[in-house]
Each structure stands twice: as structure tokens, then as C-alpha cells.
């Protein structure tokens, strides 16, 4: 009897002690808020305010799930792979940058199916040397990207990468991009997709501007593995891209995009377009301006629908009306 009690109490106590010693080790103590500094950071530090770390990855690894990384000063903080709920926040302290090269990703999110991730005030820039993507989302529950700029991502020699923001989620997720610029990408500038059957990704684009890419601007694509991608874009712009401004495509599953109060201008291909080859692709547009594009709109399968209140003028195809109108209510 006594032996049994001793055994039962001793083992948990030892385990608890071991846990405490692990948590208490200075290099291992995760914090709710960590700090990064280009000026004085050092990755041998614990990332507290007085002894900040140098890179996002070290800070991420030393931040508790649900915690936050605060940027202290302007500079370059390196690529990071996010695997838990966390926010990385730079609020007007100067450029908080990540340079991308060598086929890597600037910020990759591979979080758990219940994790919430936020990125605010970051600048991601491709510098050539082997391509890469700016922000890649593979899993998580929700992602918000605010006040960010993603520029000049380049492709690899074999044509992969080069996207500014690439949402390709294996978990059902909500994704929001707001007040963010994606510019001068070699690949699709802003690409949204669910990664397979049973996955539903819902996205909001608000005050997002996608400029001067060498591919399409905003591409809502449901690939051959199926799944559902549903995107609403408002007060956003796709301009100066070499192919389409807004593009919806579904090889399987369904892909839909609602474009309101937005602008598609000066794109080499169509201002708005759908492509359907086995799935269901729908693009609805209202209160928007479509001008200066190679074509105003096109549909290679799927549905382009208008609220009848768009300004479609000055495109290379003579501005045909969108035949399918939907009523405002």
C-alpha cells in the first residue's frame, strides 16, 4: 500500500520537476512576447525586451503558442517558418524586412488546424538568385496579412515560385489580406487555392493592390485535387500585370470570386476571366472599373456575372457587355 502510494506520487513529481527544469533553462524559456532587433539582436539571447533576438525564426521558436513577436527597429529579419499560433507585428517602426532568394520562401505558415497567425507591417522582397515565394500558407485555421508589401519575387530556373502570396492550404482556413501591396512578381502575384477535396478556404482581400506582375494578378484556382476556394475582393486593384487582372479557374471542386468597388486596369490579358475544366468557376463583379486591358473580360468555361454597374471602357476588345446580369437586392 505504502509502496504503491510512493510510486504513484514520486513519478509525477519527478516528471514535474523535469518539466520545470526544462522550462526554466534560460535558452529554452518561451515567452509570450518576444522581440527582434537588427541593431542589437543576437540569436543567443532569450528574445526578451532587454536582450532581443536577431531573426524571426529564433524569436518564433522562443515564443509561446498564441504569443507575439514585436519588431524593435528597421532591418532584415530573415525567412521564417511558422508552426503555431503567433503574430509578427511591426507597427511603424521602420522597414521590417525579409529578403528571399535561393528558391526559399520568405514566410511559410505550416501551423496546426486550430492555429491563428497574423503578419503586420512586414516587407518581403525577392532578390533573385534562385527564386522563391513571398508568403506561403500551407496549413492553419486563420491567417491575416495587414499592411505588408511583397515585391519582386523571382522564379527559379525551372519556372517554379515567384509568387508574392501563395495560399495553398491543406486545412480549411480563413485568410484575410488587407492594406497590402504585391508588386513586380515573376510568378502569379496573389494565388489562392485549397489543396484538396474536403478543404474549404475562404478569403477576404480588402485594399489589396497587385501591380506589374509578369503573370496574372489575382488568381483564384481550384486545382485537380478538388476542394473549395471562395474569395471576396473589395476596394482592391490589379493593374499592369502581363496576363489577367482577376482570374478564376476550377479543374475540380469549386472556385468563386466576388469583386466589388475594385479596379482591373492595364493588364495584358483580360481584366477579369474564368476558366473551367471539370470544376465550377464563378466570378461576380460589381461597382468596379475595368479599363485599359487587352480584353475587358473573357470566359473559357465557368461564369462571369455582372451587377450591371461596372465601368468597362477603353479595353482592347471594344468593351462588350457582360451577358449574364445578376440583380442587386
Amino acid at each position: 500500500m505504502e509502496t504503491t502510494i510512493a510510486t504513484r506520487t514520486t513519478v509525477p513529481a519527478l516528471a514535474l520537476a523535469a518539466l520545470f527544469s526544462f522550462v526554466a533553462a534560460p535558452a529554452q524559456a518561451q515567452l509570450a512576447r518576444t522581440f527582434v532587433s537588427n541593431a542589437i539582436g543576437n540569436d543567443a539571447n532569450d528574445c526578451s525586451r532587454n536582450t532581443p533576438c536577431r531573426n524571426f525564426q529564433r524569436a518564433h521558436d522562443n515564443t509561446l503558442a498564441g504569443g507575439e513577436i514585436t519588431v524593435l527597429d528597421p532591418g532584415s529579419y530573415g525567412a521564417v517558418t511558422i508552426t503555431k499560433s503567433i503574430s509578427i507585428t511591426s507597427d511603424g517602426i521602420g522597414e521590417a524586412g525579409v529578403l528571399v532568394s535561393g528558391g526559399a520562401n520568405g514566410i511559410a505558415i505550416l501551423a496546426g488546424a486550430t492555429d491563428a497567425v497574423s503578419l503586420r507591417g512586414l516587407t518581403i522582397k525577392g532578390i533573385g538568385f534562385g527564386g522563391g515565394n513571398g508568403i506561403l500558407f500551407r496549413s492553419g485555421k486563420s491567417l491575416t496579412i495587414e499592411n505588408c508589401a511583397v515585391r519582386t519575387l523571382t522564379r527559379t530556373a525551372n519556372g517554379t515560385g515567384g509568387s508574392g502570396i501563395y495560399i495553398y492550404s491543406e486545412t480549411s482556413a480563413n485568410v484575410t489580406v488587407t492594406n497590402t501591396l504585391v508588386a513586380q512578381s515573376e510568378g502569379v502575384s496573389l494565388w489562392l487555392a485549397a489543396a484538396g477535396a474536403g478543404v474549404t478556404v475562404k478569403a477576404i482581400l480588402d485594399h489589396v493592390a497587385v501591380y506589374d506582375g509578369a503573370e496574372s494578378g489575382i488568381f483564384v484556382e481550384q486545382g485537380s485535387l478538388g476542394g473549395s476556394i471562395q474569395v471576396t475582393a473589395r476596394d482592391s486593384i490589379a493593374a499592369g500585370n502581363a496576363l489577367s487582372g482577376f482570374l478564376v479557374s476550377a479543374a475540380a471542386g469549386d472556385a468563386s470570386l466576388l469583386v466589388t468597388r475594385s479596379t482591373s486596369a492595364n493588364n495584358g490579358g483580360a481584366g477579369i476571366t474564368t476558366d473551367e475544366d471539370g470544376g465550377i468557376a464563378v466570378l461576380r463583379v460589381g461597382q468596379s472599373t475595368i479599363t485599359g486591358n487587352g480584353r475587358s473580360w473573357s470566359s473559357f468555361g465557368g461564369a462571369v456575372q455582372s451587377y450591371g454597374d461596372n465601368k468597362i471602357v477603353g479595353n482592347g476588345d471594344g468593351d462588350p457587355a457582360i451577358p449574364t446580369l445578376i440583380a442587386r437586392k
Partner: protein
Amino acid sequence: MKATIAPALALAALLSFAAAPAEAQLSRTFVSNALGNDANNCDRPTPCRTFQRAHDNTLAGGDITVLDPGGYGAVTITRGISIINDGIGEGGVLVSGGATGITVAAGSSDAVSLRGLTIKGIGSGGGNGIVFNSGKSLIIENCAVRTLTTIPGAGIGIFVRPSTSATVTVTNTLVAQNVGVGIWFSVATSAVSLNGVLDRVAVYDGQSSGVLVDQESGTGSNVQVTAVDSIAAGNASDGFVVQRTGGGTASLVLTRSTSANNTAAGLRVIGASRFASLTVGESTITGNGSSWSSSGTLQSYGDNNVIANSDGNPAIPTVIRPK
């Protein structure tokens, strides 16, 4: 033997040159008014003092980061590069002596970005704020361009006149109190296409026109601009102008924007109707000397607020329908 020694010496000389710290270009460079020095290599611990020195020491495709508030001098950009100030305080450039604050003379495939900069003319001989001569794309975000003063042909806030086909975007930017045109889109030669976007751009209180879309040079050149959520107000000439005097086309599509309190016309189109066009919708035109004037194509979506201009607010005769 001699033949091998000479290349070896040359190689040694080359290596020592490449290894000289002052010459090693970086992907990211830093400028600081507080502690920068142009004798430095512009890395984070030893930032440079001026944009030009940082530009010269930044790899093509790289980035210049502003570390603290101050004046960073005029710069001529000749490669794909970005200059970024994200709320660290004023990242300033003063302009005088007929010079230009920021000149972009980049290659025809180069992408250039400017973010968070303040360019200000201080008289003393005039000059222009930002001039785009060549490049593939230029994006101007969150900038302010003020009080440029004139010598003949100058005093312009943002002067876009490329010799290469290009896209130029100005967003969330103020252009104010300049002696010349606020924002001037044009082309420098034949067979060049310029596509412009203005998004949340405000052009205030200039002594010339606010926004000028001007195809004035070369045959087969086109200048095509889309403006949304923008405003031209208080300018001593016109608010928004489309002008075609060269051998190409000039067009402006103006949406959800305002032209107010300009001394002459709120909207003006100059040139034959096939080649000069201005389309306006969901916009407000008020308080101008005249609401509009056109010798080209001026068309309205019929949903504009045209009121309290000195000419009695005549309707724009050509109305087109939304789709």
C-alpha cells in the same frame, strides 16, 4: 612562364579589388542621418549617409532601408531597387538648384519602388520632385512631394516621361503646392506605351494643373491612366487634363474622384476625339472656374456630382452606361 605570371598577377589584382570592403555591394543597405557615413559600406552597423551612396552600393534587385528621420539627398536610380521608409520618421530629400529629387533612369526590365519618402523643393533655383526617364515599372507609395519651384520646364511634383514602355503607379501619395504641374504623365519618344495608375492620390494647390495626361511626343505612343479615389483641388489651372498633341493616344479613366476649387476647368480634354479621351464616373466636380471643357472625347457615366462651378454646371453631353 612569363605568360602564366601575368594572368596570375591580374587575378590577384582582381581579387584584391573585389575584396575591398568599400566595393562589396549588398542586397540590403541602410541609411542613417544620425550616424551614417558615406565612407561606410552601408550595412546595418555602418550605415551610409545618403541615398546615392547606398544606391551605388546595393545589388540590382536589392533594397535600401531608412533607419531614422532626416534628409538623404538627391538620388539617381539606374537599376531595379527599392527605397523603403516604413514609419520611422520623415525620410526626406530637399531639392534646389534646378536639380531633381529622385531620378529614375533604370533599364527597360527594371522594377523600382519608392515608399514613405518626402521630397520638398526649397527654392534656390527650382527643380522637379520625382522624374521617371526609363525602367519597366515604378511604384510610388506613401510619399509626399511638396513646394517644388520652377525654372523653365521644372517645378513639377512627379514627372513621368519615359523612353521605355512602362507602368507607373502612385498610391496613397500627396503632391502639393508645386509651381509646375502636380503629376505629369507623358512619353519621350515614338512607339512607347505608358500605363499609369493613381490610387488615393491628392494633388493640391499647385500653380499649374493638377494631373496632366499628355501624349505630346512621338507617333504610336500611348499614355493611358486610371485614377481612383483621387483628388485634384486648389490648382491655379485645371484639375485633370488629357492632352494629345503628338501622334498617339492619351486617355484617362477617373472613378470615385474629386476635382474641386481649381481656377480653370475641373476636367479638360485637348485633342481630336479619336485620340484624346476622359471618362468620368462616381466623381465630384465642384467649385472650379468651369466644370469641364473638351475638344476631344469626354464621357460621363451620368452619376457624377457636378455642381457649384462658375459655368452653371452644364451636363456632360456624352453619357455611357455601366455594364
